[in-house]
């Protein structure tokens, strides 16, 4: 237990160190790059400011094939990127799978006519195109399916490991002493579980709630832990990625569709007590609203987390924006910027939990609507409520 605590503390400390380091390093890199570009392309105002906030911010919030730690700022504007290269796994229909570490692309970059950064090095017929996102493209223009273990994927794997460790260790205590009063972490976990059960599952799902509890709990803790990991300095913006939120909301949508009963479909496709003319209007709206639910879920979580990250990054960057105006202005702005970012971090801690709760709650609401039975025959179909199916 003690070792675990120490371990987590170490991770935290390391992360904090990295964050401060990498933020500064990144900015210096950008400054240096901007300075270089300033020599080449004069006249653009933003470049003259000496900092490219857009690139900095989007570099941080978007996925990457390497875990960037910091840049070493050498002499003559030369810098060395210190980053953990992650495995690239790509599938091309013609070639098949190719797996190799990302640092095979190590080398210089040039700008193409669309403003994309292209890697000069090409490996196994592949090159990297960087703009807001890093994309791996084939030299011959083939379709490339990228299944790489990116920064987000790695962060997610870490979160999965953390959740598994926490939950299975807590579950062990229940197996050995189920009737005893909970203590320690078990207590904290239990209040979260009971919260989900009593505030989310029971009000929305009725007597069938136990079936959906494992799904809702997994969803809640998966989103929450990943939100929190994303807040760690140096962490990945996992839940602020639309692919992730889309995946999660599709899962909840599929459960909703799979569990929907006759009553739900009946009301959806043939609303009772509605004149025929209105039905032609109502049914398409109902169908559209059914598909809008997962879209809303996707965008809500994605936008909330992404916005939080962007705001924190912008607040931190303000130091460097003002620093570019003058050294004194930059140093003078540090307390303001720190206060803002601390405030935003605290707010984001709250948002992390709230968004996890909202996602879970809305999933429960949607499933609840789908499995709701007609008011006349509520007492039918009393399955054994103890069985846990989904």
């Amino acid at each position: 237990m003690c070792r675990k605590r120490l371990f987590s503390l170490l991770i935290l400390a390391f992360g904090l160190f990295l964050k401060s380091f990498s933020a500064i390093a990144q900015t210096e890199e950008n400054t240096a790059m901007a300075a270089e570009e300033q020599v080449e392309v004069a006249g653009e105002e933003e470049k003259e400011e000496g900092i490219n906030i857009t690139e900095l911010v989007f570099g941080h919030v978007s996925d990457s094939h390497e875990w960037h730690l910091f840049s070493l700022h050498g002499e003559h504007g030369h810098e060395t990127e210190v980053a953990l290269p992650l495995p690239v796994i790509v599938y091309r229909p013609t070639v098949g799978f190719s797996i190799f570490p990302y640092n095979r692309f190590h080398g210089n970059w040039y700008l193409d006519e669309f403003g994309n950064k292209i890697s000069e090095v090409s490996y196994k017929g592949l090159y990297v195109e960087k703009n807001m996102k890093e994309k791996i493209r084939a030299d011959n223009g083939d379709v490339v399916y990228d299944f790489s273990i990116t920064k987000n994927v790695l962060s997610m794997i870490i979160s999965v490991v953390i959740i598994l460790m926490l939950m299975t260790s807590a579950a062990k205590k229940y197996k050995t002493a189920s009737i005893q009063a909970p203590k320690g972490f078990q207590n904290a976990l239990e209040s979260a579980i009971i919260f989900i059960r009593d505030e989310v599952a029971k009000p929305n799902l009725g007597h069938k709630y136990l079936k959906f509890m494992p799904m809702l709990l997994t969803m809640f803790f998966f989103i929450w832990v990943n939100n929190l990991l994303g807040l760690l300095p140096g962490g990945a913006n996992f839940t602020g990625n639309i692919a992730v939120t889309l995946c999660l909301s599709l899962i909840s949508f599929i459960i909703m569709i799979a569990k929907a009963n006759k009553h739900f479909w009946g009301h959806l496709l043939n609303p009772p007590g509605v004149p025929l003319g209105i039905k032609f209007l109502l049914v398409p709206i109902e169908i559209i609203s059914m598909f809008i639910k997962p879209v809303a879920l996707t965008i809500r979580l994605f936008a909330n987390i992404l916005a939080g990250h962007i705001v924190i990054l912008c607040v931190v960057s303000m130091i460097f924006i003002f620093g570019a105006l003058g050294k004194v202005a930059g140093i003078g702005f540090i307390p303001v910027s720190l206060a803002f970012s601390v405030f935003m971090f605290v707010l984001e801690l709250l948002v992390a939990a709230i968004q996890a709760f909202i996602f879970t709650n809305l999933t429960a609401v949607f499933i609840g609507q789908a499995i709701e039975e007609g008011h006349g025959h509520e007492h039918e179909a009393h399955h054994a409520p103890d069985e846990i199916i989904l």
Partner: protein
Amino acid sequence: MDLLTPELGLFFWTLVAFLTLFFILRKFAWGPILQSLGEREKGIADSIATAERVRAEMSQLQSENEKLMAKAIEERTIMLREAKEMKDRMINEAKEQAKVEANKIIADAQLQITQQKNAALTEVKNEIGNLAVEVASRILRKELSAADGQDAYNKMLTEDITLN
């Protein structure tokens, strides 16, 4: 906008990881946790219900006790009253009886006294008679030795008879 286009790879890995996490947790964590949570809650609810029931029983018992007590007190009062009544009655009866007895004794005594008196009187009469006869015989013996005496005696006897 690039940020709004989901990447296939991340989508795929998220799906895999989430489903793996879900299946593992369902089997090894949520199942046991939810089950023992339910059991514990049921146990607590049962305990509370039992305690409530016991308390109700206790209070019922207590009220019953109080009722019994009150009844006992009442009975005691009744018994005391009855005992007192009985005592009074017994005393009165005894008095009556004693009076009757005394009267009877007195009557007996009087009767006996009368009888005794009569007996004594009779005895005295007899004695006196005997004495008189004795005296008379003695006198007669002495008087009858003379003729006058016999006549006088006869006369006296006839007088005596008429006297009777």
